């Protein structure tokens, strides 16, 4: 048997103690403590670009909107208001010409004053097909941008189309004339220093770790931002994101796990809030051109068999507002009658199924997304599967990554697919993209109804809210009659933050709005 001399044992014990003492000093240093005025926020996903004309993901827009701004802003309260323009545009009587007067106190991060030439350059670049802007299709009705004077710019549209103003905040930004040629697209994608007007100046992007911004000292909204440095960390793991907040490594996190949200927001030192989004819908793309969704009674039976209230309350713990039509229940354009028509009623579902071609029951594949985006759709999918079984419809759940699932929906290869669709929050967007022809997601439903298309075109030319409400109401009534798409509800955006952080306003359209947060 080995015998270790006592002195050696004592020596090893002392050495181990000393080493441990060196590793764990009393300071108990933590990674990146929040010193001074650094605001550290966390996103759940890894962005691939900051370029405002190629924004893909709801989370990543936080980055683009820190650097870039627009003529008008669709703000955190869902209100359209001027940003780089002095006021909302003057619109011609035929609704085809928009004239903006620009602020004269805006400079880019490179010190150059912003003028109408920069606005024209930015839009001309976006609209040039050669530049392959991901969101170009939203703005193709703009036929000409004219500089009227250094602080006045005019847009001409091929046909009346009011919604384009609402899309600017998410999908566009103003950059200096000539900057694209000077720096190249990769610069805008990964290190856009000097080319924006926003409250944050790009500082550094450390892949898979964080992106940081400095305060813009010359920001035109005096006194903002309240921080000196903004660090946006990417932490995909739910538990780790929460641990970072609880240990004070970060100030604010987005997308907390729904089942933990209510408990976490009441913990000492932590505050939290959620807010319904106007554009984040949990949709079930039902392919009207494929069996069994080729039968309107079957589609309506499926809609009536889904208990959205229970999904909202029990599956998503209040972070989903039920709605069965493509409009949020809290939106001014919501049609409650249409919602009721497609709402939960098991007896009605059974009767509708009996009237359909599939009276003896049916089976279909429901594609769902592997990675959660705002909410984990797998939870709802399992619930839907159980509910449809009650009326004799068998659902096979098929899990795919986002890129595969969206490709299926775009090509119309699916039978049904469940996904959180984050639109800009403007009323017509989802209806246009999913329910009218020649749109990117037209084949996700395959729906093409001339009456629906004409009503939407009429809405594009309208600006009065009362008339718009009637038009959007009519569109929802048509959606209730034909049930071309399944809608389960509208998601809430939610944030948790440390109590040391103040003036946090949960955004309706963005994951986090860091500009006005005080550290």
């Amino acid at each position: 048997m080995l015998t270790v001399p006592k002195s050696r044992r004592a020596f090893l014990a002392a050495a181990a103690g000393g080493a441990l003492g060196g590793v764990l000093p009393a300071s108990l240093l933590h990674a990146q403590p929040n010193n001074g005025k650094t605001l550290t926020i966390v996103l759940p996903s890894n962005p691939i670009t900051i370029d405002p004309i190629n924004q893909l993901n709801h989370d990543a827009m936080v980055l683009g909107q820190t650097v870039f701004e627009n003529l008008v802003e669709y703000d955190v309260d869902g209100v359209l208001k001027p940003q780089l323009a002095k006021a909302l545009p003057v619109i011609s009587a035929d609704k085809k010409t928009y004239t903006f007067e620009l602020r004269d106190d805006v400079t880019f991060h490179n010190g150059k004053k912003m003028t109408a030439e920069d606005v024209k350059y930015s839009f001309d670049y976006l609209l040039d097909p050669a530049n392959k802007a991901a969101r170009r299709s939203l703005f193709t009705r703009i036929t000409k941008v004219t500089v009227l004077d250094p602080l006045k710019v005019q847009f001409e549209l091929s046909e009346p189309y009011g919604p384009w103003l609402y899309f600017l905040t998410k999908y566009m930004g103003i950059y200096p004339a000539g900057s694209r040629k000077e720096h190249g697209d990769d610069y805008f994608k990964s290190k856009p220093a000097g080319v924006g007007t926003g409250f944050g100046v790009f500082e550094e992007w450390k892949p898979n770790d964080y992106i940081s911004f400095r305060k813009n000292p010359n920001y035109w909204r005096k006194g903002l931002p309240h921080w000196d440095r903004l660090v946006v960390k990417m932490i995909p793991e739910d538990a780790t994101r929460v641990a970072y907040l609880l240990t004070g490594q970060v100030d604010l996190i987005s997308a907390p796990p729904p089942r933990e949200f209510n408990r976490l927001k009441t913990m000492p030192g932590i505050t939290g809030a959620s807010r319904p989004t106007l554009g984040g819908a949990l949709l079930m793309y039902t392919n009207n051109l494929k069996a069994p969704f080729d039968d309107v009674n079957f589609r309506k039976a499926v809609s009536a068999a889904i208990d959205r209230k229970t999904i909202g309350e029990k599956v998503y713990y209040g972070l989903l507002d039920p709605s069965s039509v493509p409009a949020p229940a809290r939106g001014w354009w919501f049609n409650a009658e249409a919602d009721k028509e497609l709402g939960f009623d098991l007896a009605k579902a059974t009767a509708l199924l009996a009237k359909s071609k599939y009276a003896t029951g049916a089976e279909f594949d429901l594609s769902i997304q592997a990675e959660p985006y705002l909410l984990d759709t797998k939870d709802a999918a399992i619930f839907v599967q159980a509910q449809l079984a009650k009326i004799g419809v068998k659902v096979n759940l098929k899990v795919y990554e986002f890129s595969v699932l969206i490709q299926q929906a775009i090509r119309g290869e699916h039978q049904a697919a469940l996904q959180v669709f984050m639109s800009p929050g403007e009323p017509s967007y989802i209806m246009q993209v999913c329910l009218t022809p020649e749109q990117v997601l037209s084949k996700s439903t395959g729906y093409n109804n001339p009456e629906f298309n004409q009503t939407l075109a009429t809405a594009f030319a309208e600006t009065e809210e009362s008339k718009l409400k009637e038009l959007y109401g009519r569109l929802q009534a048509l959606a209730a009659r034909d049930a071309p798409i399944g809608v389960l509800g509208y998601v809430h955006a939610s944030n948790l933050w440390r109590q040391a952080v103040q003036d946090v306003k949960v955004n309706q359209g963005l994951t986090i709005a860091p500009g006005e947060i005080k550290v």
Partner: protein
Amino acid sequence: MLRLVAGRIASSIGTLLFVGLALFALTRSGPGSPARIVLGAEATAEQIAQFEQAHGLDRPFLSQYAAWLGDVTHGDFGRSFVTGRDVASEIANALPVTLAIVAFAFLIALVFGIGIGVLAALKPGGAFDRISRFASVLGLSVPAFWLGIVLIRFLAVDLRLLPPGGYFPLSSGLSLHLQSILMPSLSLAVYYIAVLARMTQASLQETLRGDYVRTARAMGLSSRQVVFYALVNALPPVVNLAALSFGYMFGWALIIEQVFNIPGLSRALLNAISQRDFLLLQGIVFLFTAIFVFANLGADLINRMLDPRQRAAA
């Protein structure tokens, strides 16, 4: 010996070429295009086709592979068409992070795995042996990601002893560096401590039962000397297992880096997979394969040094 090393290096290169080809086939046969990730859900078919043409994704498979292989031999892994960043420099930035965690985990696994195995083998059926058997079963059964979350919960959130995640390089100071890699490395090491402990114990017990050990004892060698010589003879299977473990650790680091929010190679790989970032994906997996292959080569060479019979056979 030199001929052996040259032969093994040649076969390793062959393995790498085959893995490179298989990687190419697998990445390109899966559903989903990088163009859809880069251009978004609303990109038209025309935009997708333009993107694929611009990045050579429409070329025949073997032509893409030959071009990539040609570039790799010059140290050029290409530029990611998803992020636009240079793949070689992205790997160079992330590799030291993963290496620090894996190397520390490997060290922990070696010290504790072999140490526990030796102590358990010295007195079979004793209290330490029984405890170590139970601990080994526990170590083999506990998933690393779960252990990571538990460690974060208790050591970071409740006791505030360590940071919950993130990474600090050695240049930030030894203390900070060790704090940032302790929990990830421990989570990664626990399984391999158990594996190595079991293997060391079994191999050493087997060796201690040998006739020559009885002869050595009869000749009056001290217990410590006997155990030392027996251990040297018991080590070859442990060395082989350790080399395999070192390679596997890079794979498991994928989960550990995700749980601990560490910007290492494995996390870059996970993002590359979900973003269909073919070039980055190929670069990282190719590197992992090379590490695995050369770790095994290293194990063979160490075994030849430990075992005179293998030297004689060569």
